[in-house]
């Protein structure tokens, strides 16, 4: 055998270890395929099988225990080149800890070939059992034998969607299966059953591989050789910059603030609090103010409170937190519950609250209005901010109207009517 892909040095495994036969089988298969060694990328896992990469003349990459398939997936997706042969060496140990990566790669049909070196135990760490150890199989740490059956990786990879799946025993003909697997342009998995002479054979004297397979009900056979299209990487052509003229606000100094103020608006999810707060803040910026906005809502965004903290300032804002708002606007019961503690703590400031709500304990000056009744609940937040603007005159109402009418809201409500209603103060 001319060692085109394997260097002519001794393989690093114990005498009689199936891992050697697999390495030689891959070498022979690559010879059959006659590709450049630089068209081959061997990705090795951690385990005895993984220390073989130094013997290959191909590109090699040696990563973590159990993660080789995911690493290979990154390479495969990135290259998307059927001429590059990505071959993963992984043990039953790696396949146990990294099972999800195998199923995921099969499911996505990433173009690669995974050789599972299944010697039914963790060779490198001293022969402990894996989830591939068959019922009754003994290992140095499992003297009574496994009390449950092992994974059937071929069934699992098949149902996940692999293109090519086959289980074989270690022998000199393996290369034929490897060639089939490597030439399949999609996800291929070959499970090679082996016995580890150092731990498996010693713990189970006289046991034959074929008998183990038969008893475990894991047939030696070709499961699949189909031609499903491999994964295709979507690449966006010239994606648009996230900063563009559409976002530019042309501010005109037109406000009455001489020092920073903070506003808390709290209402209910689904009642437009965040949109209203965002448009309001935008209008403030358009009026020449500096502004920040933060939002708070429960993880279930569609229900419960929804609240926004806004800071407006004539000068640059550094610290964006605020312990006590100068203005609190509350438009619903959820919003009230959320802000009770803050309102109680407040020493001064103004509370603008929907007329339907109970007045909470607070030292803030109270201003009531029917935000929910005069317009629909859905726009209670917008209405309340329009009202706040009307009463505070921080910046001109017309700028807020302008910003709203340029937004998606314009199509949903009659803005004029909403802003008009506000003029009637109560």
């Amino acid at each position: 055998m001319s060692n085109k892909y394997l260097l002519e040095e001794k393989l690093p495994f114990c005498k009689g270890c199936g891992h050697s036969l697999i390495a030689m089988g891959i070498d022979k298969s690559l010879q059959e395929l006659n590709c450049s060694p630089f068209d081959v990328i061997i990705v090795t896992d951690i385990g005895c099988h993984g220390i073989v990469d130094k013997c290959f003349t191909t590109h090699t990459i040696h990563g973590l225990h159990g993660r080789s398939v995911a690493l290979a997936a990154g390479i495969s997706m990135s290259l998307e080149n059927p001429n590059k042969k990505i071959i993963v060496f992984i043990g039953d140990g790696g396949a146990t800890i990294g099972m999800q990566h195998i199923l995921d790669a099969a499911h996505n049909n990433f173009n690669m070939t995974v050789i599972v070196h299944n010697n039914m135990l963790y060779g490198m760490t001293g022969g402990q059992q894996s989830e591939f150890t068959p019922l009754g199989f003994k290992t140095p740490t499992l003297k009574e034998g496994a009390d449950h059956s092992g994974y059937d990786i071929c069934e699992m990879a098949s149902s996940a969607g692999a293109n090519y799946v086959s289980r074989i025993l270690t022998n000199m003909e393996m290369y034929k299966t490897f060639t089939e697997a490597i030439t399949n342009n999609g996800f291929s998995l070959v499970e090679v059953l082996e016995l580890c002479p150092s731990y498996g054979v010693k713990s189970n004297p006289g046991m034959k591989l074929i008998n183990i397979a038969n008893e475990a009900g894991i047939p030696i056979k070709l499961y699949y050789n189909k031609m499903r299209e491999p994964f295709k990487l979507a690449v966006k052509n010239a994606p648009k910059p996230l900063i563009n003229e559409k976002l530019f606000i042309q501010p005109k100094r037109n406000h009455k603030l001489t020092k920073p103020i903070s506003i808390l608006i709290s209402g209910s999810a689904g009642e437009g609090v965040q949109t209203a707060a965002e448009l309001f803040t935008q209008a403030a910026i358009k009026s020449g103010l500096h502004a920040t906005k933060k939002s708070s809502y429960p993880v279930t965004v569609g229900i419960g409170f929804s609240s926004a903290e806004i800071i407006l300032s004539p000068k640059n804002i550094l610290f964006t937190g605020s312990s006590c708002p100068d203005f609190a606007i509350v438009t619903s019961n959820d919003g009230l519950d959320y802000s009770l503690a803050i309102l109680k703590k407040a020493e001064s400031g103004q509370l603008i609250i929907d007329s339907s709500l109970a007045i909470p304990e607070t030292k803030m000056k109270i201003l009531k209005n029917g935000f929910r009744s005069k317009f629909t609940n859905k726009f209670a937040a917008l209405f309340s901010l329009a009202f706040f603007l009307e009463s505070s005159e921080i910046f001109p109402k017309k700028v807020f109207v302008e910003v709203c009418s340029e937004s998606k809201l314009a199509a949903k409500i009659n803005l004029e009517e909403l802003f008009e209603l506000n003029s009637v103060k109560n």
Partner: protein
Amino acid sequence: MEIDDQIIFTDNSRLVIESLAQAGADVFIGYPITPANLLYSYASERFPIFLAAPDEITTLQWMTGFSSTSRIPVTATSFPGFALMIESINMAYMMELPMIIILVQRLGPSTGTATIGSQGDISILNGIISGGMAIPTFCVGDSIDCWEISAKAVETAVNLRTPVIILTSKEEMMTMADVDCTKLKKIEQIKRNYFESDDTYVPYKPESNLVPQFLPINNNKHQVRITSSTHNTKGIIQNSTHEALFNSKRLHNKMIKNQNAFCLFDYNEAKKSETLLISYGITSLAAKEAIESLREIGKHVSLLIVKTLFPIPKIIFECVINHKNVIVAEENLTGQYRQILFGANSSKNISGVNEFGRMITPNEIINEVLKYEQ
């Protein structure tokens, strides 16, 4: 106030993603987690390649695969996801493959509170590489930082062949503010250099700056070996040969040797001030405000805002020498960066302003300063 045409109202997540993309990062791989989700969604629009990974270990492995073929991958996560990534970040570090990991801090321990910010992951970053090697860790405070440091992170990752961390928190990534785009400097796309000689390529042979030249694993001319176990210059696994240990130590030494190229900070020394205030990230904004207020009442205090947290910048100790008292303000329970800098046994002239579960206010910093500067 200067009124300008190019004001936008945005969160900083937009600036980070745009800056990374302009600097040449081309793949974003993510697994959703609050408060990093805005980064994820901007990236889904902006990055030429965007992939949703099934978990954070896969995220890092895919990124490493992409990086080995010469792309520049980015991800964004928070502690729960970051914890899962750590072994794989070590792998990419050992393999010397560039990538950017944005860690958006939230309140821990464990899953903690997803929607509350924090600066609680500093200690873990200091020790994230097994062996104690430094990994470049930037920390952003305001929008200009987000813009400039993100691009710098790409440059650092590529030039030093290393994963780079951008540390931030919920507050920086989710709060919306007015940003003047005329203040955002033009970003040049990173130019990558590859090994070009006809000689044998030795993948971990360092140049004079201690960084080895790079070749993608799919090149057709030279064999490439990439290894995450202890290895020699050829990328071949070795137990503890002199050459292999030298190689592992080099990973740290290359960071120190090139530290000046990515050591970012803002230092404002107040003449005759005996007190130095140190801060970083979100708390640095409160610190700036505190310094301004103190100045208004005639107290002049020096301020050092650290923007490259690791490897620890030497400038910190140069600034410390000139002051009698040091205050470190950071939003965590125990003063993590303070302890890293000065040890667990803080002396009476070294103190912290710390909070857990909420932002530190300028007033809290002022009060601490006034203890020294009466």
